[in-house]
């Protein structure tokens, strides 16, 4: 009997001790947020960044697509050229570069004494190897198209030739690499800023094959940080790379943590377990009042695309009427809580090529509140142009959108505005997000909502990709359609091709601005708003320069630190 009591008492005592210990441990690791002026000691220079509910899709620069993956990769790897925090291209691994007069040969001279994070020297051969590896079919990269300007790109990705080294990737000496293009294009350096061309360490890949990114603690990159540990179920820890060629980071560790969905991550941030967190829509209003709220426009545009090959959007005035009828101000204020910017732009602000002047809509003004009278007048003219006797003779109009609550709300608001202003009934067709891209790709939709994020900040990635001849994303059939506008559109397509051959960046930007204004006047699509990043960042974090590109200049890590 005594034994039994002792056992039970002992168990309860142990439970009590455990509880006290756990709570005490929880208390001792909490941070005092009141005093944020003193620079934290090295032991506390740990930046804790949440990455969402799943592991990185990949840490292989040759495969990366996801923005979060890119953020981590850019701490570990660097490329020949990269962006500074204003979006200007700067030499990174390269000390300098020279473009031949015909624009076909780019000669890069590397910085002296470059090394990978394990101390192995990094030479021009490694750069050539890395770019070539991305393009090999065996790598199975979904993002080879960033390098499609390189001569014989089609042959190597199609498996017709085994290597570009010695062909269009010419290693002159350990510090000099020449890249030969198939045609002169002004935006080539922009495409090189994407991680597909970042330098990776050959010996690690040869040793571990596809699993090489699981062994990054042994080397692999030449960035400001190197991998300390990587777990597919916990996350990634990086520490300063002592062989980095630039200034050493002030942070002593970055912890990228698998953090759960946006709500869970936000709750964890409020509990001081991360230094940054995205804001759930439901919390946006209260979060905007917080001192740690950060709002930065991002290079993302939301728009409605209209198919020139499907009636009635083959008629200019009808397209314009649908554009002018939309009150973007109302939508952004009420539906999107004022965290985005209503716009007529086709190239977002905050990047090279963005029009320094206002971009006017089809009504000839920069206003984004819509114009009821003009919309109705445009529709009437459109009906005449299209040979429609009245509204009821218009074909059925269907707006396709993602089958998600936010998108459906937006679609319903648009449908409502069109009904109220124009008297036109538009049906909503919602599609599973997993099938959205492929459905649009059929080219058979009439009107659909879409959003695009810059792959690289160049007007080419906005205008040519969607309006260029033969482009995979030109599902609107701009230029190649049976409407009366086709000929004029083809002239614009030729103008885009010409713009990409211009060497002077300012002239080229001006040409693109002109094209953009023409597209906006024609309602080539209906721009809605430019999105923004809205998040919370701990006031302990200093030195990060937020910019629309969402990139941190590798050398900026020397200025980023934490206070206590």
């Amino acid at each position: 009997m005594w034994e039994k009591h002792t056992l039970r008492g002992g168990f309860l005592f142990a439970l009590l001790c455990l509880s006290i210990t756990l709570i005490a441990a929880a208390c001792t690791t909490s941070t005092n947020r009141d005093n944020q002026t003193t620079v934290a000691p090295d032991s506390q220079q740990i930046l804790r960044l949440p990455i969402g509910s799943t592991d990185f899709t990949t840490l292989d620069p040759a495969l990366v697509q996801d923005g979060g993956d890119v953020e981590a990769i850019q701490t570990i790897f660097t490329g020949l050229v990269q962006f500074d925090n204003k979006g200007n291209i700067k030499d990174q691994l390269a000390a300098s570069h020279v473009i031949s007069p015909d624009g076909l040969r780019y000669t890069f001279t590397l910085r002296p004494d470059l090394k990978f994070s394990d101390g192995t020297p990094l030479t021009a051969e490694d750069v050539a190897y890395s770019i070539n590896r991305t393009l090999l079919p065996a790598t199975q990269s979904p993002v080879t198209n960033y390098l499609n300007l390189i001569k014989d790109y089609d042959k190597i990705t199609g498996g017709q030739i085994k290597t570009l080294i010695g062909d269009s990737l010419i290693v002159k000496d350990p510090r000099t690499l020449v890249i030969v293009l198939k045609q002169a294009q002004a935006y080539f350096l922009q495409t090189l800023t994407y991680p597909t061309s970042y330098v990776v360490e050959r010996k690690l890949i040869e040793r571990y094959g596809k699993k090489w990114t699981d062994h990054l603690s042994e080397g692999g990159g030449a960035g400001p940080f190197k991998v300390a540990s990587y777990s597919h179920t916990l996350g990634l820890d990086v520490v300063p790379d002592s062989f980095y060629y630039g200034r050493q980071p002030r942070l002593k560790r970055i912890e990228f943590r698998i953090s759960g969905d946006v709500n869970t991550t936000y709750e964890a941030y409020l509990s001081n377990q991360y230094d940054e967190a995205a804001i759930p829509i439901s919390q946006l209003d209260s979060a905007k009042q917080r001192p740690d709220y950060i709002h930065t426009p991002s290079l993302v545009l939301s728009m409605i695309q209209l198919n020139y090959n499907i009636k009635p959007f083959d008629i200019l005035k009808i397209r314009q009427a649908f554009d002018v009828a939309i009150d973007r101000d109302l939508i952004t204020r009420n539906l999107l809580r004022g965290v985005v910017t209503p716009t007529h732009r086709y190239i977002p602000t905050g990047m090279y090529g963005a029009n320094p002047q206002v971009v006017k809509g089809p009504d000839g003004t920069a206003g984004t509140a819509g114009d009821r009278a003009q919309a109705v007048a445009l529709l009437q003219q459109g009906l005449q142009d299209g040979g429609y006797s009245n509204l009821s003779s218009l074909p059925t109009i269907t707006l396709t959108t993602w089958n998600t609550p936010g998108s459906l709300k937006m679609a319903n608001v648009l449908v409502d505005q069109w009904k109220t202003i124009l008297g036109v009934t538009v049906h909503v067709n919602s599609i599973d997000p997993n099938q959205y891209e492929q459905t649009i790709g059929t080219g058979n939709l009439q009107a659909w909502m879409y959003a695009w994020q810059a792959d690289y900040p160049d007007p080419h990635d906005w205008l040519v990709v969607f309006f260029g001849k033969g482009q995979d994303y030109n599902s609107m059939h701009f230029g190649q359609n049976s409407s009366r506008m086709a000929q004029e559109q083809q002239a614009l397509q030729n103008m885009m091709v010409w713009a990409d051959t211009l060497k002077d960046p300012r002239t080229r930007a001006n040409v693109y601005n002109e094209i953009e204004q023409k597209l906006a006047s024609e309602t080539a699509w209906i721009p809605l708003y430019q999105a923004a990043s809205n998040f919370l960042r701990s006031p302990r974090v200093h030195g990060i320069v937020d910019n629309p590109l969402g990139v941190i200049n590798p050398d900026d890590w020397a200025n980023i630190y934490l206070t206590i």
Partner: protein
Amino acid sequence: MLQFLVKRLVSGVFVLLGVSFITFIIGYFTPVDPIRQLMGQHYTYVGWLQLRHAYGLDLPWYQQYYNFLFHCVKLDFGTSIHYQNRSVGDILKDGVPISTELTSWGLLLTLLLGIPAGILSAVKANTWIDTTNMTVALLLYALPGFIIAVFAQVMIVWCNVQFGLNWPVANWGTPWHYALSDIQAKLVPVLIYGAAGYAYFARLARTSMLEVLDQDYVRSARAKGLSERAVIYKHALRNALVPLITSIGLSVGLLIVGALFIERMFNIQGIAHIAIDAVSQGDFPVIQATALLAAFGIVTGNLLSDILYTIVDPRIKLV
């Protein structure tokens, strides 16, 4: 016994084949194009063709299914489409220990608390102990796991903010490691997992025990003058356990499959979490492998139940 095991093994293989075929066919005919989804904003037609070929998705369905089965025999479930550099086997290797740890601790808690509580309720039937116990069990059973999880998470955040604690809101820590930070992370999810199971087993054990206590042989045992403890533990309990065995066996079989809502809510990277992500990512090799794993768990659990029957009640023969 041997004959029974062989029979069950053969039928188990057919079940697994059936599951593999159904999941394959569903994946094959689904309108989701995993390669299109993989390429996202970087889609080009030529690139799409090349990747489809690289993954063998341009082969006829029977060829793809044959390849899948052929590799399955070697426990090679292929390469994930979403996580391009990772084999499905690797992904499962990460998820299974986590799910197994969560559910094992949860099941242990369930059995250690739930069955005794149910038996106590039966023995003290219709007293305040029984009423309280069953009310709590009913409440826990009626409340969906994700509601309890949400509530627990809100409470953690509230405590953290109010009292300056730093209790983990989510995550699991290192699997099968028990540093203080690991215990902190694991405690709440395990308790929540255990709560629902506790309620189920407590109610099941009570019903089963009440039925047994009403049997003639229990009455005879009491009439022989045996102590109440001997009657309950030696005569009633053993027989009352028989119906529980089925449930325990199935629960053991499902240990590897994890707990969907809890893994999701607490960001635990177990098998259930992996399976749901795979569905949203259109990652068919992972979907197929997790479905097979679940089927394997259920087949094994059933087998285990049958074997446990014979141990608890030797009168039951396996033929």
